[in-house]
């Protein structure tokens, strides 16, 4: 092609438009490639969430309308399972028991973890701080079943080490696992102790992120100790506390291993939680549909409580 001919063509409108199209295609192609790359990165999470969480939830919801014992064919029963559970006093009681555990254990976890986190943060020596952080975090790394087995020995009314020391200081032996009241206390103590490390690390992170100049300004203004904690630190920690509360409530609503191993839900049904009832119905009694219905109600309860916590957070959480 001659140079003059090319210059002539490049000045034409058609040529200019074709160059612009090419440029747009390149931009679009690069954006698509970037998007594709993004999808590839999130694919493992999305796929595993779909396969292991969303689909089971949908399947469980579907199963809740059937009567199925695994071996014989499932039979559609409509809302029968849901109607049945509203009359099942054991199920209703298990929700109350779980609620008790949730309220007491989450409150205790947050309060104790906050005090520990504040205490550890106030330690000047870095080595000691790391030492305590590690020590407090260790229980969360240990399986709940193992902890429960060991604590069952420690809580034993007659031969347990806890009562041994209680009697040495003049206190009576406590029927930790043999009284409905004390069995609940034993479950809560064990659960709080096991979960404390998680709350502790979250709150330690929150405390570390409070700008030092804010605390120094509080000191200059004469706010010390309790006043500084209530008026400066806790409000500034409120987003972390919200996270801790939400995660704590979701976890405690699903408590299973500790009461299962420590008390087997007893004495009677004193420590039988909702998940234990789901396990018992679905896998021991092979009432898969009924177990699914209870599981779905628990899912709705968790979802509702989380939503309520976020709604209420508007009134007490302060974002910087």
């Amino acid at each position: 092609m001659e140079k003059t001919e090319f210059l002539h063509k490049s000045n034409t409108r058609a040529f200019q438009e074709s160059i612009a199209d090419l440029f747009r295609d390149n931009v679009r192609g690069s954006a698509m490639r970037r998007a594709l790359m993004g999808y590839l990165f999130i694919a493992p999470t999305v796929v595993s969430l779909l396969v292991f969480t969303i689909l089971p939830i949908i399947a469980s919801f579907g199963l809740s309308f059937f009567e199925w014992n695994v071996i014989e064919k499932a039979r559609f029963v409509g809302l029968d399972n849901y109607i049945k559970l509203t009359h099942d006093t054991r199920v209703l009681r298990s929700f109350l028991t779980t609620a008790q555990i949730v309220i007491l254990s989450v409150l205790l976890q947050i309060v104790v973890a906050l005090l520990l986190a504040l205490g550890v943060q106030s330690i000047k020596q870095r080595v000691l701080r790391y030492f305590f952080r590690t020590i407090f975090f260790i229980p969360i790394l240990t399986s709940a079943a193992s902890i429960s087995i060991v604590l069952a020995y420690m809580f034993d009314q007659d031969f347990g080490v806890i009562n041994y020391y209680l009697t040495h200081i003049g206190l009576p032996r406590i029927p930790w696992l043999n009284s409905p009241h004390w069995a609940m206390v034993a479950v809560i103590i064990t659960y709080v102790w096991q979960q404390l490390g998680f709350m502790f690390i979250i709150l330690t992170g929150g405390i570390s992120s409070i700008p030092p100049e804010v605390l120094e300004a509080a000191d200059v203004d004469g706010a010390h100790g309790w006043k500084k904690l209530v008026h400066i630190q806790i409000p500034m920690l409120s987003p972390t506390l919200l996270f801790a509360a939400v995660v704590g409530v979701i976890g405690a609503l699903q408590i299973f291993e500790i009461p299962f191993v420590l008390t087997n839900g007893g004495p009677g049904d004193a420590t039988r939680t909702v998940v234990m009832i789901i396990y018992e119905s679905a896998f021991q009694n092979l009432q898969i549909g009924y177990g699914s219905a209870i599981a779905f109600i628990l899912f709705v309860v968790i979802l509702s409580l989380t939503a309520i916590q976020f709604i209420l957070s508007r009134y007490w959480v302060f974002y910087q």
Partner: protein
Amino acid sequence: MNTRRISRRDFMRNAILTSAGIYMAGCGMSSTSKPASSPTVSSQATHVRMQGTLQIAFVGTQVANSQKVIAQDFEKAHPGVKINFLPIQGKDWNDYFTKILTQIASGSVPDLMTVATEGIQLFAGKGLAYPLDEFVKQDKEAIREYFADVHPSLVEAMMYQGHLYALPFDFNAANMFLNMNLFSQAGIEYPRGNWTKDDFYDIAKKIAALGGDGAPYGYGWVIRLWGSWTPWIYNNRSNLLKEDKWQGGQWLWDTFYPDNPAAKGRSGGWRWGEPIANTPENVEALDFMVQLAKEHITPSISAGGGGLLQGFFTSDKLGMTPAGGFWAGGLHNAGMKPDEFDVQFFPKWQTQRHLFGTAGLVMMEKSKNKDLAWEYIKYWVSKPVMQYILSNNDTTPVRRSLATAKQYANTGPKHWSVFYDTLTKFPDTAPIPAPTWYERMNTIFTKYTSLAMSFSQTPQQALDNMQKEMEQAYEQEGGK
């Protein structure tokens, strides 16, 4: 120690190879006389099926060396066969059954699985277990020696609706284990065989009165169906469910126990009827347990396995506990010397009837290797295999010929003969009540026993409530 083990192993291998040869010959011979209408065990099919992989589920965390050895020997005797063990962890039989049912629900079915009395009717009732009748009939000559060595009550416990679902491998009757260190400290003699509930109470009180630092308890038990307070129900002439028997199974008694008086009146298995949890005898039995707890003769009673009890017993904190032959090996492994503990029959109350549980390999209905599975069952219950596997006395062999002084020389107890004599001396001794709805029954039983033992309900209240819930469960399960 090593030398002894190798030599036993070599002996075992030879014995097993020989017995496997006999079995194979037995199969070939009997298959010719088998009716053509039963294709499962035809000689041609046997030839084809002696290939493949057998999946065997059992309760536990790992495969014991003894199991590996005998499986390897079976594989050697059957080229082309592979044995895969599937250990399933469970804190008790109930937990194990739950897990295996879940696994079956997911489509993964083993060919064979270990099942105790607790689960025989559960799996048979749900159509998951496959009856062994045809196999036993076909191989009757080869298997006759086994039945001749096994008490009929154990075989009957493995039957349901007239069909045999397992060949018992081991059993444990609830006898009374005695801590002879504490007996000696309290100046108590080994009790006579026909000791009574009152004798027991006096002994338990004396041991509990020993005092001192960490004073011992006279008697201890844990809440579960087997060996809990249920032996006191049995010896008070009662049960939790109405006892009946299934019809059928006469072919088995006629074939293998024609002249055995202990087989007279045996049936097609135990038929567990409607609940009778709150009979006056049961209330009386639970009341006695509560009395012992209130008098601090027993420690606090909670649910669980026997691990805690064994710890107390071996550390001389417990005088007596209901246990079976499995405790002999357990106490030995925990460091107790043979003369430091002993065993006696359970005390007499209205009667001296005992309860027992037995276990064996159950063939799964969905197994595609049924003939091979049957070969393994026969091999499993053969005397050399049983002797080898149970050499450490962690359970009681069902073969009477293995209840010998030699078997218990290393572990004790001195009165080892009590284990098997329980079956022969008390012919009305029966298995624990384990209907098709065993899992629900066990949950209800555990729940109300724990309420009575925590003094939250009186024995009468607890058993009335137990009865009410069991009636509901019985009705919902179709009264099977």
